[in-house]
């Protein structure tokens, strides 16, 4: 019989290039099972970091992509009706708390506030999860930990203070050009020189943040551009597909980015 959550274990090391001492900081927080909040621009490596740390700490990782339709029962669990009658099915949060996984709520601010409050009893000294639907008070496994993430920005929902203050936080940023080049080369398979050119163009797109773009190209987008080059496309075609046309529909901004692309290569 398979052990619980074996399917959620990460078998191979996920590649992650540290930007600072975030690995040490996270390990210290996990040693005390402190809930963690990861914040930073989209595509800068927050999820990859969580995967890497789950592998490093040898814990299963249960991930939930939060959205506006996510209800409390989607996290906690619900009664199901099948041919044999009713049966309880643990939600991802309950699974993680019951069997000692790391539960990762990605884009936590996208969930409604009345949904996210269910995590409160797990994030303080009680470390428990009331399952009122089945009259159970689940005490969290000693290895359970909660990690949440979001992308700060002017159009991002605010997290309730009563939720936010339950977490320790790590701030992520776009990596330096040198580190980002190494990431793009490693993840896409292109040569370092080509990766550096892609990163340099990515840096140029970020100069339009607040001037036609909400955000410039993320590291994830640059990796995709590199993957297209590795697949045989020219640098210009790859960057146009993965960056320019993906970033904007505004004619003026697109015209400027296309011209910058022409100047870059």
């Amino acid at each position, binding site marked *: 019989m398979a052990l619980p959550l074996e399917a959620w274990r990460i078998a191979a090391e996920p590649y992650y290039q540290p930007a600072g001492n975030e690995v040490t900081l996270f390990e210290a927080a996990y040693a005390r099972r402190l809930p963690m909040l990861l914040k930073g621009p989209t595509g800068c490596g927050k999820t990859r970091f969580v995967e890497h740390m789950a592998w490093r700490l040898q814990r299963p990782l249960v991930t939930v992509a939060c959205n506006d339709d996510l209800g409390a029962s989607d996290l906690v669990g619900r009664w199901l009706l099948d041919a044999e009658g009713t049966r309880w099915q643990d939600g991802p949060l309950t699974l993680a708390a019951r069997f000692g996984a790391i539960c990762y709520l990605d884009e936590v601010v996208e969930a409604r506030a009345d949904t996210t409050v269910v995590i409160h009893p797990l994030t303080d000294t009680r470390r428990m999860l009331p399952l009122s639907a089945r009259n159970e008070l689940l005490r969290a496994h000693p290895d359970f930990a909660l990690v949440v993430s979001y992308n700060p920005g002017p159009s991002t929902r605010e997290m309730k203070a009563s939720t936010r203050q339950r977490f320790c936080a790590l701030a992520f940023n776009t990596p330096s050009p040198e580190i980002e080049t190494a990431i793009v080369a490693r993840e896409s398979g292109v040569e370092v020189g080509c990766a550096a050119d892609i990163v340099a163009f990515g840096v*140029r797109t970020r100069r*339009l943040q607040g001037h036609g773009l909400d955000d410039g190209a993320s590291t994830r987008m640059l990796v995709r551009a590199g993957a297209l080059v590795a697949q045989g496309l020219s640098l210009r075609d790859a960057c146009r597909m993965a960056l320019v046309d993906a970033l904007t529909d505004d*004619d003026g901004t697109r015209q*400027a980015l296309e011209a*910058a692309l022409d*100047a*870059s*290569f």
Partner: protein
Amino acid sequence: MGAAMPSEGLTMRAVAANATASVARRTLHEPLQRYLRTLWSVVPALDDAEQGPFIVGQTIHLPAHRPAADRAGAWRWYRASAAHAAGHLAYSPPVFDGRGLGPIARALLGLLEDARVEALACRELPGLRRLWVPLHTATPLDGDGFEALLLRLARGLIDSGYDDPHPWVQKGRRLFFVEAETQVLALRRPEPAAVDDLAALPRVGPPDRQAAARLVCRVR
């Protein structure tokens, strides 16, 4: 773009003769500003002028209208002009002291600074060369007058595929490209020796001071 302007003037007249419409700079204002912001993080103001391009402070002045056969051609010209001017904001010293220099020396210094800016810009943004080279159209057929030689030298400094037979143009290239062409000449102060060396133009007629005055780059 000072030294390129008379040739560019010829080009402009040729384009205007074939153009059926002009494109207003203001219709390209927003993409042009965003374009410059991506290149060097410079955010100059853009303004209209009767002629141009030229820089005053942090403002780039461009012609209000550009005769062009199509909008794409006008966009390409405005990009080239604005990028060259923005390159000066990125790479040139804020003030170049040209006091005591005659018009020929000032024209030469302006030409060399234009070429230096373009060389540095092309090193960082190699695609700019494709934008600027077509604007340099001088050839030996333009003659050996002072103005024509300056334009031929300007072309020789940006276009590695252009081989001008005139000894003075060749001398200018040798002086400009140093250390096996990995570096270019940078004159931070008027250096009489270098300028006098290059200013020793072959005797082709009375010194064309009016031509030199037309070509004086924005040394301020």
